[in-house]
Every structure is written in C-alpha cells, then in structure tokens.
C-alpha cells in the first residue's frame, strides 16, 4: 500500500512538460514536491495566481499572498496575479491542462463525489465543481477504501456528486486505474506488494483486469 507521499510521487509521473496545472488540497498539494525539476510547468491557484512557488521562509511571509488552501506561499519568477472571475475563466475555458484533486468516491463512469456528506456540516464546494466540469484531464488521488474497509471505487456514487463523467485516471493507495469512455475501471498498475486479487476484492465498481498488470515504479 502506498503512503500519501507515494501516491503524490506516482501522480507526479503523469505531469508533462509545458502544462498548466491546478492542484487541490491534501495529497494533490504534495504532488508539487515530486514534479521533476527538468519539467517546465506552472501551478495555478484558483484564488488568483499562476506560478505558485514554495512556502516562504519566516522573513518572506506575506499575508497578501496565499494559495487556495489559505496557506502562505511565494511566487516563482514569471508569475501573474488576477481576479477570481479571470481565474475561473482560465479553468472553464479549458486553458488549465491538468487538474489533480482528492475524492471521497468515484464511480465507474467517472462521476466524482468530494464535497458533501449528508448529516455532516456542509462546508461548500469551493472551486471543485468548476474544475471538474471543465478540465480536459482530471487525475484523482484517493484511498481505495474507507477506514472501515468499504470500497470508494463504485458502480455508482452514494454521496452527492461534484461532477459527472469527468475523472480520467485514479491513483489510489493500491492501484493506478483508468476510467474507460464506455465505463469501468481499467487496472493499469498495482502498488508494490499488492495483488490483483486484493484490488479486485476492494473495488466494488466494474474492474477490467488485463493479462498483465505491472507493479508501479516509484523512482
């Protein structure tokens, strides 16, 4: 089973040179630590920045410079700032190439649920619905099962959904899976030490297992 850092590390292998990328809160934020320095990519923060840099030193902290998780950040050279309407124009307009976000559930047709648990305090969807409705490529970082062992890769989401037919790829603590256009989770890779049988038993939705399922490589 992969740690959160290893999930982030595996997702970072999907990043391509020249991409503009939006990273969600949680595991997706960690992806930034593993993107190879040889790639030129730009990270978007939906509160109005292209060019997120590392967290600041104590002396460099600026309360007027935060990311969408409200964390203090810095800007890389070549950054640009803009207002919230412009930020979501970039997102909805399809100018952001890759969106990486977390999920509570994903269904075999690519629906995602990640904003609301009935009976619990509803905090809001933030920018998640705009992002999933618009991004051309969405990768989800998630745990394969809930803490009590229930599969989160389902035939149909049970929680209120955030967007329909939008997820293209999932990296979980057990596997890398693609969602096929006709529906179904195509098993592409398994985490080191995890068997195909275990993934089968922990995937409630339709799982397609090819003849050969290589082990993930985490460099």
């Amino acid at each position: 089973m992969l740690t959160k850092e290893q999930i982030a590390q595996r997702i970072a292998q999907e990043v391509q040179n020249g991409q503009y990328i939006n990273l969600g809160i949680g595991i997706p934020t960690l992806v930034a630590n593993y993107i190879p320095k040889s790639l030129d990519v730009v990270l978007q923060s939906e509160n109005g920045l292209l060019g997120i840099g590392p967290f600041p030193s104590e002396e460099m902290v600026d309360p007027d410079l935060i990311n969408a998780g409200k964390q203090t950040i810095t800007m890389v050279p070549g950054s640009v700032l803009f207002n919230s309407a412009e930020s979501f124009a970039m997102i909805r307009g399809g100018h952001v190439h890759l969106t990486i976000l977390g999920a509570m559930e994903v269904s075999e047709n690519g629906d995602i649920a990640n904003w609301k648990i009935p009976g619990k305090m509803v905090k809001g969807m933030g920018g998640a619905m705009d992002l999933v409705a618009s991004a051309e490529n969405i990768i989800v970082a998630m745990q394969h099962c809930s803490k009590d062992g229930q599969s989160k890769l389902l035939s149909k989401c049970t929680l209120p959904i955030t967007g329909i037919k939008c997820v293209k790829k999932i990296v979980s603590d057990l596997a890398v899976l693609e969602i096929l256009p006709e529906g179904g989770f195509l098993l592409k890779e398994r985490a080191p030490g995890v068997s195909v049988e275990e993934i089968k038993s922990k995937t409630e939705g339709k799982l397609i297992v090819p003849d050969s399922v290589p082990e993930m490589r985490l460099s």
Partner: protein
Amino acid sequence: MINKTVKDAREAVADIPSNAFLMMGGFGLCGIPENCIAALLERDINGLTIVSNNAGVDDFGIGLLLQKRMVKKMISSYVGENAEFERQLLSGELEVDLIPQGTLAERVRAGGAGIPAFFTPAGVGTEVAEGKELREFDGKLYLMEKWLRADFSIVKAWKGDTAGNLIFKGTARNFNPIMATAGKITIAEVEELVPAGELDPNEIHTPGIYVQRIFQGKNYEKRIEQRTITKS
C-alpha cells in the same frame, strides 16, 4: 477629477440599512475590508445578506458580524472555518447559499457588466442544477445562472486615489475588483490613498467609475489562517 473621498470607515458605511444586500471582497481572510467590518459592528443594523467567498473565522472578518447576529444570509462557496457560523446554520438562525466558486465569481462579474444570465458547465448533474434551466451547446450540457448585484459592495485595495482608481496586491485581489463593479454603491478602503494623478494609469486594476466612496484605512491586522513556512 471627481473626488470620491470620505473621511473614514464610519462615514463610508453610515447609511447601510438593515436588510441590505452586500458584497464583501476577500478570499479567506486575505484582502477583506477590515475597517468597514469594524465600522459595521458599531452600527445597530441586522438582517444583512452578504455575498462573500467565505464567512471569516469566529473572531475575525465576517465572523464578527455573525457573532453580533447582524447577518441573515450568506452567499458563499466555502464556509468551513467558523464554529459560530455552523451553530447559527444548524439552529436555523442563518441561511446559506453555497455556490461553486467560479459561478459565484461569474455571477458577480455578470452583475457588474450588465449580463443578466449565462450558461456554465459547473454543477451539471449535481444538486446545484436543481430547478435551473439546462441547455445543450455543441453536445455538452450547461446550466443557466443569473447575475448578482448588490446595494453596497465593500472592497479592500492596496493603493487608491481620490478618483476611486484602485490597485490590488498579491492574491488579496481575488473577488475585490469584480465586486467593485457590481455594487450600486461601492465602498473602497485602501492602505494608501493618494491624490488623483499619482497612480500610473497603466497600472490601475479597477477604474474609479465603479467606486463611489474611498478612504484610507488604518491598523490592518491581515491575519493569516495557515502560516506555512519552509524550514531552512
């Protein structure tokens, strides 16, 4: 040049009545109009509806207005950081409309730009789409969202001039420039107010035509929600 200057926050918000429909700039606690919020707390008004991406924290920002029970309804995209907010919501004292952040921004932009409605993909197939018109364009479904316009928009900028022109700093810009366009009366508080003519017209983000009142704020706390540091 028309002079938009008022003396201070107290004068700027003096005529905001109970049950007014307000917009307030800011993302989290970044770029919020601290001085106007403090001045509103001195007013004996309630029943406010506030459009703001977030609802502050318990003891800062819009959270202070909630504590004084001045707010009837929040229109926001994310409201997670506030225990008093949760209490009032669960007890039915407070209404909340949760709106996708990009839709919220575009509704405000549309309000300022005179566009009564538009179609967006955000929320199609979710509960956000309930009761809304759906239409297909080029094979994809979109839902109709309407503009938002306010009685008063209250924004915070870094620099401004007496003509109401504004310049923002960092990610404290966020919703401020679009909200400035969508208020019947827009109040701008700025960290530094200069005479008209001193700001470079090439550098201005918000043209003064949108701003009716401007003043230089003081004692900005600029509280940080998540102080995150790289250890050297």
